[in-house]
């Protein structure tokens, strides 16, 4: 167990250091999400009171698209110089690689979300009517839901032709309940109509189930050849 934690930590440190030096994923995500925010504002009047109803969906669509950019890059890095092959033959636990990668992606996407939320507030004139602190569990659980399955599926799509295209095609259908929960919970907090307790529970259940499945199956997928 200590070895799992130690290898996970060193994988995570490596990913964070690489990202800190290049800032590839975070920059790409930030600019991409910004473009989505601007383009969406053409579709409706962003400052109208009714747009509060749809901003929850919009925020998550922007972050989902941005996350795809980061998730696609995550494993590509390991393909250069056959790092992934070296990892396959090493005695390090496969789940440590997966957890390190997933935690790294979670961190990068959370940073992007934290930087972009103020922008949404400014551009869409947002004032949460409900208790704003409830957005914290929604964002943490929601981001993990996207990241854990996304990191796993990115490892799958790595083995296919046209890798970048494949990831959203397999990730979006499976993520539908999580996306629905994030959008509904965010909208409820923003409009203050109801309490998002059910949706937060659903996100928690989704996270627990799929994190378990990812950890059970990652070694099989890593060694599939």
């Amino acid at each position, binding site marked *: 167990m200590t070895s799992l934690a130690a290898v996970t930590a060193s994988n995570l440190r490596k990913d964070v250091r690489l990202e800190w030096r290049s800032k590839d994923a975070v920059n790409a995500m930030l600019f991409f999400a910004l473009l989505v925010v601007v383009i969406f504002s053409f579709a409706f009047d962003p400052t109208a009171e009714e747009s509060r109803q749809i901003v929850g969906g919009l925020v998550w669509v922007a972050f989902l698209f941005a996350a795809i950019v980061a998730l696609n890059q995550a494993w590509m890095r390991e393909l250069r110089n056959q790092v992934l092959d070296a990892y396959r033959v090493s005695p390090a636990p496969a789940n440590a690689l997966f957890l390190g990668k997933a935690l790294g992606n979670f961190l990068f996407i959370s940073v992007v979300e934290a930087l972009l939320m103020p922008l949404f507030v400014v551009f869409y004139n947002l004032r949460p009517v409900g208790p704003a602190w409830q957005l914290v569990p929604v964002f943490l659980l929601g981001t993990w839901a996207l990241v854990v*399955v996304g990191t*796993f*599926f990115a490892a*799958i*799509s790595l*083995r*296919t*032709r*046209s890798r970048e*295209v*494949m990831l959203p*095609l*397999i990730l*979006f*259908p*499976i993520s*539908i*309940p999580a996306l*629905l*929960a994030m959008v*509904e919970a965010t909208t409820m907090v923003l409009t203050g109509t*109801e309490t998002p307790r*059910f949706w937060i529970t*659903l996100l928690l*259940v*989704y996270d627990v*189930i*799929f994190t378990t*499945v990812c950890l059970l*199956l990652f070694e*099989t*997928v890593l060694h*599939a*050849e």
Partner: protein
Amino acid sequence: MKFKILAVITFLLLSYALYQGMWAAPREATMGDIQRIFYYHVPSAWTSFLCFFANFIASIIYLARRNLKADAFAVSTAEVGVVFCTVVLVTGPLWARPVWGIWWTWDARLTTTLVLWLIYVSYLMLRRYSTGQATPTLAAALAIFGFLDVPIVYMSIRWWRTQHPQPVIAGGQGSGLDPHMWAAVLWNWAAFMAFAALLIWVRYRLEITRQQLDEAHALKAVGQAEGSFTR
């Protein structure tokens, strides 16, 4: 021989089920003949769900035993399941338009079926785009994710829809069905199951042949490579 027997049984069942659905079952009081689409819609749905369940089991067996026959069975059931699920999604709106007045509503069952269809289409796309020996393993992993996702999808969408007013409700479809109507539903289900089994059989044999062909190609390539080394 067994295949021909199944083919004949399927033909007979489909014919009798057609008679049951079109003539033997009574005309529905309010909806009229349009209700007869129900005899195709519901059995198709049951058949497709069973196909997806079979796909889930076959995927687990493949991951546990690495048996390529299980993989061939998984592909066949997923493809046939998608076909029947498509039938459900096409016959549903055909019935809904005259009865509900709209083609589609984002109701729990409709949306879940649509998401189910999306998940298995993405499974088939992964199989199509992935190359090499890893395909069965990757596809089996995705199949497990997909199947586990279905109850979560259903729960979430049901909650989502009970939060909002339902646009149209045509009463419980299964409630208080006439015995003749039940006969029509069950005969059609039997016929569709036989038809699905037939299709899965054909597809399974095709997949096994394809696997053998791949293997033969690989062996030939290895043989040629060895030949060029010794020369």
